[in-house]
């Protein structure tokens, strides 16, 4: 056979091979339109928005000090702003958690094929057609003090006084569940369908009852998918805006960051502050996402088929 030198000798492979080896060839041009798009229409305006946060209005500087960072100083030193972080979290975290946790058993139950499954799935997709406005409007009418729900509850004697479902934390929470639950249900269903049913069958033959199968096999394999679902519903819940205003208590319990940004923007006419709040919304979201991802990175994430 050949006596050719090996190892460092790369001259025999052509340049195009060597570039292609690194993943560089002309098919990369396929990415170009999307990248151009993202840079021009997203990165540039986004950077501009961030720049704006460093140009506080005179009155902000006067009131809070801090020079170019006055907006940030204001946000963190003034509890009126600062609290909105907690208020938003208090809403978004439980809502996202609820959506994920409630979706697990439902997805689990609806997994096998049965008559009417598609119909049920379709019903579950329905809320994406509702839109936030109709949801808010509907909640106000249906679950308001004089709505059908309260009329039913009081006339059947289940409660004495109408229950306050809307214009408060509960109202926003309900609207987040109505729009977010179907989404996490569908997402979790799809992750669940990726788990090879023979794993559960195997656990069954080894003597595991339904709970043990769920706890020891399905749940650990589902966990990374749950993390992803949580992130996506959390993002949706975190930037909640119309419902916080329409069915919430916009000044109090549901004075979320998006409302604060809008308040600065539209009512206080303080664009730098509005940008600051918006940017901080992004930061808080990313911190939460990063934490979840960090947790997710400790989980088993390989194939969920029967063959390792």
């Amino acid at each position: 056979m050949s006596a050719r030198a090996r190892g460092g000798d790369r001259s025999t492979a052509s340049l195009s091979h060597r570039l292609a080896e690194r993943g560089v060839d002309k098919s990369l041009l396929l990415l170009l339109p999307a990248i151009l798009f993202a840079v021009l229409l997203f990165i540039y305006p986004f950077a501009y928005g961030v720049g704006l946060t460093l140009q506080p209005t005179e009155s902000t500087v006067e009131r809070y000090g801090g020079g170019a960072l006055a907006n940030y100083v204001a946000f963190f030193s003034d509890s009126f702003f600062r609290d909105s972080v907690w208020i938003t979290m208090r809403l978004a975290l439980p809502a996202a958690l609820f959506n994920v946790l409630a979706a697990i058993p439902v997805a689990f139950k609806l997994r096998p094929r049965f008559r009417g499954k598609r119909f049920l799935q379709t019903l579950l997709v329905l809320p994406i057609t509702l839109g936030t406005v109709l949801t808010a409007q509907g909640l106000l009418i249906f679950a308001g003090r004089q709505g059908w729900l309260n009329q039913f509850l009081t006339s059947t004697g289940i409660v004495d006084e109408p229950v306050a479902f809307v214009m408060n934390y509960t109202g926003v929470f309900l609207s987040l569940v109505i729009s977010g639950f179907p989404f996490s249900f569908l997402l979790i269903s799809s992750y669940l369908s990726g788990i090879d049913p023979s794993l559960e069958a195997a656990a069954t033959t080894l003597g595991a009852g339904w709970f043990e199968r769920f706890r020891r096999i399905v749940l650990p394999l589902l966990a990374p998918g749950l993390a992803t679902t949580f992130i996506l519903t959390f993002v949706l819940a975190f930037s909640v805006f119309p419902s916080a205003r329409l069915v919430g208590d916009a000044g109090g319990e549901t004075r979320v960051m998006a409302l604060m940004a809008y308040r600065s923007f539209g009512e206080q006419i303080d664009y730098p502050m509005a940008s600051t709040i918006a940017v901080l919304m992004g930061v808080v979201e990313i911190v939460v996402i990063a934490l979840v991802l960090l947790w997710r990175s400790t989980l088993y994430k390989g194939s969920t088929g029967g063959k390792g």
Partner: protein
Amino acid sequence: APDSGGGGGGGETGGAAEGEVPETPSEPVTLNIMDVAGNIKLTEGMVNAFVEENPDVISSVTWEAGGAPDLVGAVKPQVDSGNLQIDLVLTGTDGLSAGIDQDLWIPLVDEYGDRVSNQENYIEPAAAMQELAEGYGVLVTYYPSGPLLQYNPDAVEDVPSTPEELLQWASEHPGEFGYARPANSGPGRTFLQGLPYMLGDTDPLDPVDGWDNTWEYLRELNQYIDNYPTGTGQVITNIADGTWNLIPTTTGWDIEPRAEGRQPATIEAAAFDEFTWVTDAHYAVVPQGQSEDKLSAILLLLQDMLTPEQNAKAYDSGYFYPGPAVEGATLDLAPEESQQVIEEFGRDWYDDLIESNEKAVPLPAAELVEAFDIWDREIGAGKYEG
């Protein structure tokens, strides 16, 4: 497309344009009118009438509606880029002064006041409101607003006639009185601005240092209020469906919802024994960079809108009762339907009350924003203890 004529950047228009605005446009113009004050109902008829009469001046108009907070977002990019899509803005005091702050408006009155000479016919409180425009806007409609009270006669027997009685009533009926967040509501802000007069505060025009009684009062009232909706609509719904039984209102907000069927006609209104009207008005403003032709047409239009015949259309369905801003614009000049609605849903005692009680201009924009800020922090957020 940049069809808005020769007008370039904002700076060019100022003084330089003054002499160049022709009496009439060189050719008929089309106008895009933005309404951020709910003014369209009041003035649409006036504008349409003018267009019909003067097709050589204005060939057509388009309307768009929005909220005052959206105004700057929509207009500023246009002014900055010299690319006007909105030719005329109808706004309340908030949009007006936000635009003044951002340098968005042509100083219409200062520079072309002589061509809107009908401004001389303003009734007195309207003239006072016109002062707030600082020479930028032309007042087109006016109303004395409130604060008044609206109540469900089935549930409220002894109607409060003073703020103290109101507080008393609210404490006896917790959760049955409420008002909307002032920043989002006309009746809300009218109630807020009317209190200092009734409670004898030191300076009704200084919410920071002069409203001690008012803030104290609102804090106490706050204990008996469930929540503050972010719009008057929800307040109307609340009293209509019996959730609440007593709310603050204004003349317009009392008449129109009943006329439209959004409230039962049986809802009653009442006034405090002693109060000062906190008046309100709508203004027409023109964004910087407007072309001479369009400006010329707009001036002709505004002049016409301030004639009694036209201005009387502002009676509408009681939405801004009474509405007109000029002398002589009496109800009998208003359209037939308008007269019928007022007949049926108006309150005969309103006109006397308007005649007899003091009238004050609302807070200037900066102070109003400050009042809102304080309200948000001290009252609104008070519901939530972080």
